[in-house]
């Protein structure tokens, strides 16, 4: 083990910031993080072992307990469930004789659930040793099981299993335009970097991750800082369930992203950039690195880019399964090799970002748009969209519709138009912006997609009338409780309380007062949490409480003033079994028979 750790640390130049990359390699090698590895890494990097322990316990894909040699994570997004995930999971578990949440006794297989893997348009999906397999069916599961039982290494499995499709259904301004390599860079330098920044400002481009901060303003503020060391970071931690548009951009518009980052770097005066790629997108890692190599060879990255004398390079770093790392400051913490805990602001990451240096952090789509604007000018971009929301938005459409996939729309497009284009019928509602967004009913289908009205980072999940709103809200509420980083009290404790309280009502054990309690907890979490995750964790409940109060009321047993918070009769089961009793006194009713 010593030589393996030694080589791994060497591979990452004994830096502490790529700690997640180091641990990913260790996990892949030993199927867990051995305690001895913690000691060796701590010594090798001269960091407290507690930092490593904290990181291992924070991310889903690290484990101190040995996992199976084939380590399977089933995507448990609401869209996977709608596509029959549960039955297929049962099928897989039965075939492999390995229940969810366990490691098979022979150590060959382990199966667990994980959050959305970004294949909602081609689910249900799973990850095996980190690699995504979509479009699960019994037939495909049979093939997976066969290869596991034959002991074939994942690298030798049939490659068609791992195919991920772009599914671009409706390209628009950006997706329809092929950016010639280096064209945006050449245009930017010819026009002048300051002028290019002015052009990006004139285009009205705002961040595509959802928050909608004006891109040029971010870049200009960072450029104006007094520090000389600055960084460009691309947020490719596309973790919002129901979002997969960055997956497609990373796969097929790779050069556009890197070109946008390079222009940003030149404007800022940055020499180093990172793409923080969510762990679930491991299948894109080699491709991204190959494109980087290609660009270095073509003089589009490196010491003297296109002969303009600018030095810049990009490094891809993988996450390891953590939704909160999509939050910009949590992402930077993770990029520094720590737990993804959102920082206190101010200062913003523009002033103190990666390694406390000024940093511009933008969404994948923002960099693509910036590159195109640098090439084609601000008017080309601003010609579509609305007054305050210029340009187009790329949507990831999934759920109940005929044609799930990628759609690019000018801002201002109505919900109605989108639903028509993707072939959605009998619509109950749409989750715009993913679990942290808003559940919009069809009564609101005249609503327009803009930053001011219906804002989305790209997620657009459609539900028809066969779906139960409570199942959806439950999936989202459990998701947030699972993904809470645990830093602040209201989110750490509150999301778990909210989950319990919601489940109580959902399972038919709600009584008078339980809805008020649910709303009170939800509001407390929203009003007092530290970061965006906490502030939006209760949105699925708050937005449905507001739109469908009767649904909640109907779940309540008004005749009872109270229904206990735990299963009374179930709580006697152990005592019944041990005493061998089953008489009338050995049971309790949940609510009193009057």
């Amino acid at each position: 083990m010593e030589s393996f750790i030694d080589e791994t640390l060497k591979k990452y130049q004994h830096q502490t910031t790529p700690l997640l990359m180091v641990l990913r390699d260790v996990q892949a090698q030993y199927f867990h993080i051995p305690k001895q590895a913690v000691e060796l890494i701590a010594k090798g990097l001269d960091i407290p072992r507690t930092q490593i322990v904290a990181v291992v316990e924070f991310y889903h894909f690290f484990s101190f307990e040995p996992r199976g040699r084939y380590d399977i994570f089933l995507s448990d997004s609401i869209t996977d469930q709608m596509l029959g995930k549960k039955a297929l999971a049962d099928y897989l578990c039965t075939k492999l004789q390995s229940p969810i949440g366990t490691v098979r006794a022979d150590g060959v297989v382990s199966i667990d659930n994980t959050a959305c893997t970004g294949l909602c348009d081609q689910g249900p999906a799973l990850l095996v040793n980190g690699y995504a397999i979509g479009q699960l069916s019994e037939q495909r599961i049979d093939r997976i099981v066969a290869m596991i039982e034959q002991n074939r290494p994942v690298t030798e499995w049939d490659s068609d299993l791992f195919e991920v499709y772009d599914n671009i259904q409706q390209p628009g301004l950006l997706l329809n335009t092929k950016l010639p390599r280096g064209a945006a860079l050449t245009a930017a330098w010819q026009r002048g970097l300051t002028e290019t920044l002015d052009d990006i400002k004139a285009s009205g481009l705002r961040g595509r991750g959802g928050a909608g901060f004006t891109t040029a303003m971010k870049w200009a503020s960072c450029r104006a800082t007094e520090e000389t060391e600055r960084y460009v970071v691309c947020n490719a931690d596309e973790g919002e369930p129901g979002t997969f548009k960055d997956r497609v951009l990373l796969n097929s518009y790779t050069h556009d992203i890197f070109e946008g980052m390079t222009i940003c770097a030149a404007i800022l005066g940055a020499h180093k950039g990172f793409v923080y790629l969510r762990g679930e997108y491991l299948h894109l890692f080699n491709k991204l690195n190959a494109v980087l190599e290609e660009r270095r060879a073509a003089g589009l990255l490196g010491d003297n880019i296109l002969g303009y004398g600018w030095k810049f390079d990009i490094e891809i770093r993988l996450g390891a399964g953590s939704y909160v790392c999509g939050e910009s400051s949590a992402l930077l913490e993770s990029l520094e090799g720590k737990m993804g805990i959102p920082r206190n602001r101010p200062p913003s990451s523009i002033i103190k970002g990666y390694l406390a240096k000024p940093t511009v952090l933008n969404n994948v789509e923002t960099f693509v748009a910036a590159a195109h604007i640098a090439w084609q000018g601000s008017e080309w971009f601003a010609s579509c969209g609305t007054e305050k929301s210029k340009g187009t938005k790329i949507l990831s459409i999934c759920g109940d519709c005929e044609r799930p996939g990628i759609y690019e729309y000018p801002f201002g497009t109505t919900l109605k138009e989108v639903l028509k284009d993707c072939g959605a019928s009998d619509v109950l509602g749409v989750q715009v912006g993913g679990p942290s967004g808003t559940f919009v009913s069809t009564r609101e289908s005249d609503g327009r997609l803009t930053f001011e009205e219906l804002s989305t980072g790209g997620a657009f999940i459609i539900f028809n009338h066969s779906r139960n709103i409570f199942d959806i809200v439950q999936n989202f509420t459990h998701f947030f409780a699972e993904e809470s980083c645990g830093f602040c009290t209201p989110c750490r404790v509150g999301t778990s309380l909210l989950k319990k309280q919601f489940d109580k009502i959902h399972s038919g054990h709600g009584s008078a007062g339980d809805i008020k309690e649910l709303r009170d907890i939800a509001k407390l979490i929203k009003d007092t949490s530290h970061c965006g995750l906490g502030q939006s964790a209760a949105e699925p409940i708050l937005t449905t409480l507001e739109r469908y109060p009767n649904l909640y009321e109907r779940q309540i047993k008004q005749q009872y003033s109270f229904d206990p918070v735990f299963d009374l009769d179930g709580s006697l089961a152990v005592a019944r079994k041990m005493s061998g009793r089953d008489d009338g006194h050995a049971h309790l009713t949940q609510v009193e028979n009057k």
Partner: protein
Amino acid sequence: MAAKLKLATTSLAGCFGCHMSFLDIDERIMQLVELVEFDRSPLTDIKNCSPCDIGLIEGGVCNADNVHVLREFRNNCRILVAVGACAINGGLPAMRNSIPLEDCLRESYVNCIGIENPQIPNDPELPLLLNQVHPIHEVVRIDYSLPGCPPSADVFWKFLTDLIEGHEPSLDYDLVYYD
């Protein structure tokens, strides 16, 4: 003179310490009996609750019988009060909650050193234990809580006289403590 308020008290998974502390109101009990009539309570030995104004519950819920008694109080008492640490958060009996019930029973009745005729009691007269000890607000709706282990006699006195006089009960800083 207005009709006397009816008061009932009981101890569930508690130590009767709260009841003892209640009795520490000493001679004020003479004033109290002028104002309230005791219904079901260890002080009266009345076995079942009739409709009451106030029910004081000491102790948490650790077995099936506790649930029945608690329900009887809730059904009969207009105002139900959680008295003391155990009623409020399970208290010391709840420190068993970190040990599986199976281990608790085996240690007590089977593996315990010096035990004769080891067996898990199975007489239907004995209430079965719940997996964990719970505070009473997890089983029935509670109107007020009086913290303390036990709450002092002054707490009982202040709380009850407030209610008798028709005020919203309130305790000054010095009367609120958790130990």
